[in-house]
């Protein structure tokens, strides 16, 4: 992975993070092969937001695109972090789930179709609370069904990151791709501080936040499969590589014994230094029991 040092082509880079969800999704497909499904002109928007005085968006902050990646059928779902923090409402959740179910049905018919989810989200949209949560559960069920046939790749580029219930969806992915600007975790620092106090997590401590949730740490501890610079070409290249790799022998979320043993060995009497943690959870679990 190109994760070390300074890139000589820095000036020629096109930032992926600066792209919106639609541009991000388009950038991952073979040029000219993608088309958006249920786009803004279809105007399927959240029925719950207006009731609460929040302006809905015509795509509900979720872009679905179908096309080809490395010549193979693929679907990309991308959350727009700029709309309601990328939160999952009834419609955005249903769009992702329906797209994955259709991809799954195509795979069952022999049309190999991979999936990529671009997650920039704080999780459930609180204005749609229980439907947001329910749709995340349904999405997770659809990921489990689809990933038997073709890889489901999670890309979290930043800067919103991936939190809350959607971090479980990321956890089910066949491969996780991150940038240094991305964060991945279940509970954000503010929530932890509110629930368990500033001594548990000081949410103003930027360094601590990145040291725990940041892409570099997740990659160094084997929780992400690639750490890529914020460069559109490199990111698209990584996605192509994982599409070609196909379904992993064992998904990370099915390696129960490995992670249960790792958790059992942790000394819980004190807080851990995130850097030191990298020595405990290495990128490679092959020397430990893998099942």
């Amino acid at each position, binding site marked *: 992975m190109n994760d070390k040092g300074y890139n000589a082509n820095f000036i020629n880079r096109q930032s992926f993070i600066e792209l919106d969800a639609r541009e991000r999704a388009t950038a991952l497909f073979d040029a000219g092969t993608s088309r958006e499904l*249920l786009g803004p002109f*279809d105007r*399927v928007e959240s*029925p*719950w937001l207006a009731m*609460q005085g929040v302006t809905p968006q015509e795509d509900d902050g979720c872009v679905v695109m*179908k096309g080809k990646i490395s010549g193979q059928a693929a679907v990309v779902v991308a959350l727009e972090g700029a709309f309601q923090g990328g939160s999952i409402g*009834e*419609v955005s*959740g*249903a769009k992702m789930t*329906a797209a994955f*179910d*259709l991809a799954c049905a195509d795979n069952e018919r022999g049309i190999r179709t991979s999936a990529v989810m671009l997650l920039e989200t704080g999780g*459930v949209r*609180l*204005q*749609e*609370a*229980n*439907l*947001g*949560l*329910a*749709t995340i*559960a*349904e999405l*997770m*069920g659809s990921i*489990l*069904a689809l990933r*038997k046939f073709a890889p489901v790749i999670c890309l979290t580029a930043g800067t919103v990151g991936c939190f809350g*219930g959607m*971090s*479980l969806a*990321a*956890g*089910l992915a066949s491969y996780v791709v991150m940038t240094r600007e991305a964060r*991945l*975790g*279940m*509970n954000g620092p503010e*929530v*932890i501080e*509110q*629930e368990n106090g500033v001594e*548990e*997590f000081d949410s103003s401590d930027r360094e601590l936040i990145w040291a725990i949730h940041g892409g570099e740490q997740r990659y160094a501890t084997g*929780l992400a499969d690639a750490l890529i610079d914020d460069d559109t070409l490199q990111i698209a290249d990584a996605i192509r590589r994982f599409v070609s790799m196909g379904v992993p022998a064992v998904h990370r*979320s*099915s*390696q*129960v014994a490995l*992670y249960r043993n790792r*958790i059992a060995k*942790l000394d819980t009497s004190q*807080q*851990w230094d995130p850097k030191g*943690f990298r020595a405990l*959870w290495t990128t490679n679990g092959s020397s430990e029991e893998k099942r």
Partner: protein
Amino acid sequence: MNEYTGVRGTVWFRAFTGQASPMPGDPKSVLTADAPLGNDHARFLCVVPDSHARFPCARHGEVGLEEAATLATRVREVIEHDKNTIKRPIVAIVDVKSQAYGRREETAAIFLAAAAAADANGSARLAGHPVIALVVGHALSGAFLTHGYQANRILAFDDDGVMIHAMHKEAAARVTRRSVDELEKLAKEIAPMSYDIRDYAKLGLLYKLLHVENPEKPSQQEIRNVESELIAAIADARGGPVDLRNRLESTAARETRKASILVRTKLAAQWLEN
């Protein structure tokens, strides 16, 4: 913490299995037992509080790293065991206040441990195991995603002590900048926001709402009734598809989740165009 958290879970786990203990090597916070249920031998699982849990942020009934990893292990055990034989029912008794909110949890990727438990339950369902969730108390947020929400059929008590929600009231009020009173008022008008299990039922996600006079002290007759409801839910699950489509096909869902159904219909039509 809800005064009922843990009490109800233990009461109902014991009612079905005749005991309330973890399996050897497991943390005290996860109860697992196999017990007869109709003509089946079902696996029951429940998360309960352990005030001496190893992880300080998981001592009040939260689903933390060890709880999630244990649930995943105990569910996978059943999948493995029944690989070439009749698929046993898996029953999640749900009374969980939340996921564990801690720095250690985040560092050691609680998102992955939770995903692993959901993976185990979802994979069991896809393999043909009837996976049933019985919500006897709280089923909140990430904790419910971890334990229960991958079930083919969800049953809950129609009781004020039962709450299924994305975020507890105080936090939701804080985040949406409302008072708890305002939030409750709004929740009354908007079904997915409501904290009332009877409103939750309107979303169409539940297989059935059951009535028990006092869920902390059920009578023998009530236990037998709930048991036969579980048996019926298992039979229903075995007769249907292994995915979660039933949640969108219920009468209530066809009313409340019109937008979800519209998304699916339109997307399916556009998927085929070229």
